[in-house]
């Protein structure tokens, strides 16, 4: 499938670096949905994205308060919706409005799938063979992302692997 690209990293700092490189190509209104088991590196990747967006504040896990915002070259909306039980509740957080400004990264975003717009980059993080090995799969959904996937993948060429 054309809308799929795969990458691999072997340290948390490489995952961060991938996020940083990716962030340089992100634009206002981009939505990234991160999925993957506990410890797969969702927050780690987001920290890299933060660096790439020029955010100086420390990006920590948003699990407790659900949503955090940081200002950089673009605003970063960082959400962890693992505990968000009800889809309408995410809309009470004014999700549609959040999505309009800056880059939005949603950890465990698949849980509120129906509440999210169609245009999104789904990033699946998984464990590899070694302790620190991670597989990172991009699934471009919607015109906004399918059109850019080749550009993104070539910028991340260092880490690209066969899917």
């Amino acid at each position, binding site marked *: 499938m054309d809308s799929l690209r795969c990458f691999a990293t072997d340290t948390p700092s490489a995952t961060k670096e991938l996020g940083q490189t990716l962030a340089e190509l992100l634009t206002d209104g981009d939505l990234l949905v991160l999925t993957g088991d506990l*410890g797969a590196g969702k927050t780690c990747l987001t920290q890299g994205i933060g660096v790439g967006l020029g955010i100086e504040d420390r990006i*920590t*896990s948003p699990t407790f308060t659900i949503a955090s915002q940081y200002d950089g070259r673009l605003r970063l909306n960082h959400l962890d919706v693992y505990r968000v039980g009800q889809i309408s509740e995410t809309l009470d957080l004014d999700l549609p409005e959040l999505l309009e400004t800056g880059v939005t990264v949603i950890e465990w975003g698949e849980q509120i799938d129906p509440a999210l717009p169609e245009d999104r980059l789904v990033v699946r993080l998984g464990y590899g063979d070694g302790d620190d090995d991670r597989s990172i799969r991009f699934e471009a959904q919607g015109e906004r992302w399918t059109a850019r996937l080749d550009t993104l993948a070539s910028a991340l060429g260092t880490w690209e692997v066969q899917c």
Partner: protein
Amino acid sequence: MTVVLAIETSCDETAVAIVRNGTEVLANVVSSQIDIHAEFGGVVPEVASRAHLEMLEPVLTKALDDAGMTGTDIDAVAATHGPGLIGALLVGVSEAKALALAWDVPYVGVNHMEGHLFATFLEQPDLEPPLVVLLVSGGHTLIVHLEALGRYRILGSTIDDAAGEAFDKVARYLDLGYPGGPVIDRLATEGDPTAIKFPRGLLTKGNVGDFDFSFSGLKTAVINYVRKHPEATDADLAASFQEAVVDVLVTKAMRAADHVAAKGVCLGGGVAANSRLRERFAEEAAERGIDCLVPARAFCTDNAAMIAAAATWRLANDGPTGLDDGATPNLALPTV
């Protein structure tokens, strides 16, 4: 004489307390929602907000009954206005502001983290600053230098997951149930804390002057270990994981106390209910010959008495908060 009624609804405890002069606890009622959320493996915000709305009225009535008071005896009303879950916070803030309006007394919005710092003084009002306070909960991991009441510096905090979050996530991974802290605490007593050598995040010699924490790597190390050693017992995993967390927390807090020449060290936040942490913290403080306060578990976990204590001080020093106050989910501790 100031009698403050305080409301705490920042997360999953609905709490009301009445405190005289900042230290004398006349009523301290806490209604926990843990049973409700256990089913979902964590606090579900909308469920929490609904439960606060249902529970607040009876909890308030019980607090007034316990203190043998009515509205006319109350001099000020306070509420936690952050950090916490926005929908949950707003129930408490709305209730407190309405009471202030009805009773015609000042309203005080209180920072939840400052409340935890004041929990210390509820039990030992004569504790002398400067102090180093280790605040550990589901949402926070902080080492605070308390120079004087109202004067705080953050010496260190987590760069990824909070300590309590690590407990919850490891318990979730091992299928031990929710909340993770008490389950792991209990299970650890049956296991060997030296069975598995888990990494101590940011604790190497090169990091001696660094009081920040990292628990994400530890969480991943537990997961990796289980993947490779499916035969490992939950008890050994729990004991070894807990030992790693406690080791980092206590070592860093004591190094910070040395660094600022603190007269004493205190423990606060929900994770401060952990038995092993309480034990190690007291031992190490005793070795250094400095004051040590490990509050009763009831004052470590979320409660409104600590909010009333902080409100009493804030009211005397900064005056009341306006009735146009709202809630801020990511509210930071006010620092100098």
